[in-house]
């Protein structure tokens, strides 16, 4: 049994200048052991309930991917790089594969493009459901969160049937995808799942997005305007909530998106509520895109490039060159810059996660003056994803 006075004495002997820092402020470690931050730490200088100063402290998930990728063959890196964005692991696969395809100059067969687009959209839907779960847990309406996680499980099952894995499906490889769609029953199940989730959206509206208390909680919290957002490199739904209609799927079309019809929801007032509602509308749009893809149906043909280089993957070489590819993830503009020097390993892989812009400077500036109760709401409304900051 150690009494507190002894602890204080010991601390003073060790020279720890104890808090409060100033006359009337104190230091608060928000995370990493906290329910609202998944292994990401914010050091807050608090004055009562108000945040005076915030410092984001990333790096708890750093594994040095960009170094490891230089030591592994091209295709092995797929199994590595997808761990950069845990909620939607298909996005790093896709950007890396697109960059490699561009360096080699491969034209993907249509079936591969269809499968990639479908997988990306499924990943978006599941990531948005996961985000709804997080937001409602932070807001305290646990019912919606539980339901969202349960609906996400249906997509997980579909992923498992398609790729063989629940979360880390190492599926999108340079030159197509790893294996073909199992059968038509999978397509039917996907259609049923899309219909099911579409039918469940009103529940979320009643519980979260149209709730009086949610409006009171999120209105006018963490406001950023267009100029600020552009200067800070904000992308994705966060910048669309400030009135900038920037969506990579439209601005820099890839895969099948030029042929698909969908809207880009844009709201003007860039507060937490606007960001949340933009995500809510985008979930609807993604379900609509999936419906269109299912209407289109997978075109016939090979599901990956017919190339003898793909026979011996460890010796798979890529001509010298570099390429930048980016896709629209639920977090924002997710880009990869790949440099090759003609060997069987990449020379340099740089992954650009959107959260490196959202999670550091934007967060630090939005948190100043917020109440402690708003900190988790602002975090969730920015949809900050620590793994792609740390990489």
């Amino acid at each position, binding site marked *: 049994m150690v009494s507190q006075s002894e602890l204080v004495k010991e601390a003073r002997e*060790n*020279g*720890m*200048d104890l808090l409060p*820092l*100033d006359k009337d402020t104190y*230091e608060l470690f928000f995370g*990493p*052991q*906290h*329910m609202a931050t*998944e*292994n990401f730490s914010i*050091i807050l*200088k608090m004055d009562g309930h108000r945040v005076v*100063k915030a*410092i984001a*402290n990333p*790096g*708890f*998930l*750093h*594994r*040095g991917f960009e*170094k*490891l990728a230089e*030591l592994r063959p091209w295709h092995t890196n797929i*199994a*590595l790089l997808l*761990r950069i964005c*845990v*909620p939607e692991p298909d996005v790093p696969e896709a950007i890396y594969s697109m960059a490699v395809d561009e360096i080699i100059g491969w034209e993907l067969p249509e079936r591969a493009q269809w499968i990639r687009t479908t997988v990306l959209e499924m990943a978006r839907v599941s990531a948005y459901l*996961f985000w709804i*779960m997080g937001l409602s847990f932070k807001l305290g309406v646990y019912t919606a*969160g*539980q*339901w969202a*996680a*349960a609906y*996400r*499980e249906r997509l*997980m099952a579909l992923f498992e049937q398609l790729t063989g894995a*629940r*979360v*880390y499906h190492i599926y999108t490889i340079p030159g197509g995808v790893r294996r073909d769609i199992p059968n038509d029953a999978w397509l039917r199940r996907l259609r049923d799942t899309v219909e099911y989730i579409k039918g469940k959206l009103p529940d979320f509206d009643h519980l979260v997005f149209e709730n009086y208390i949610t409006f009171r909680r999120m209105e006018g919290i963490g406001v950023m305007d267009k100029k600020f957002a552009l200067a800070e490199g904000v992308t994705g739904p966060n910048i669309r909530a400030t009135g900038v209609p920037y969506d990579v799927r439209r601005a820099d079309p890839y895969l099948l998106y030029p042929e698909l019809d969908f809207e880009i929801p844009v709201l003007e007032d860039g507060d937490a509520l606007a960001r949340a509602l933009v995500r809510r509308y985008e979930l609807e749009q993604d379900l609509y895109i999936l419906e269109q893809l299912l209407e289109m149906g997978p075109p016939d043909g090979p599901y990956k490039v017919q190339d003898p280089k793909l026979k011996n993957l460890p010796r798979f070489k890529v001509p010298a060159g570099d390429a930048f590819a980016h896709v629209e993830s639920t977090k924002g503009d997710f880009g990869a810059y790949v440099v090759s020097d003609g060997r069987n390993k990449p020379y340099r892989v740089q992954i650009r996660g959107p959260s490196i812009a959202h999670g550091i400077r934007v967060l630090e500036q939005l948190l100043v003056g917020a109440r402690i109760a708003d900190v988790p709401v602002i975090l969730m409304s920015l949809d900050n994803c620590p*793994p792609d900051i740390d990489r």
Partner: protein
Amino acid sequence: MVDWRLFEPLFDFARRKSLWIVAFCTGCGGIEMPPLMTSRYDLERFGMMPNPAPRMADLFLITGYVTPKTLKRIIITYEMQPDPKYVMAHGSCPLNGGIYWDAYNAIKHLDRYLPVDVIIAGCMPRPEAVMDGINKIMEMIENGTADGWKRYKENYEYYKKNQDELFGEGWREREARRWIPWLMNRKKEE
């Protein structure tokens, strides 16, 4: 004074049936916690629930790889828990580095720095595997072999030596004081 040893079987039953988890997702495996807690695989059936406060938690889930920066927090959080406490590690990364076997920033052998009771294989372990590991740790509590907290007390010098070799001496004070200059804007003077 009552001899509490008489009640040990009851206590063990209670400890087995109500394992509270520290809400600390240290890696990829954190993505499988929500499915485990929610209605697909409902862990609350076994009386488990995530707990924001380490003071009242029993089970520490090391979900995935551990970086040194996280390991410092893990150790501090682990020492905050009251005895008896149990540690369960997800996946092959805490066991031997797994896919990060040559990464400079991922712990290779977690059991050098903390006593681990159960390690689940796989990358990443499916929820069924996690539930299997939880059943295993329940059995170990029942037959009294989940004694990591005792081992930590007995071999504290060994663990402390490894921790200090990894982080350098006096890392706790350094961690506690690191951000104060930046919060006080005292960087200029120092």
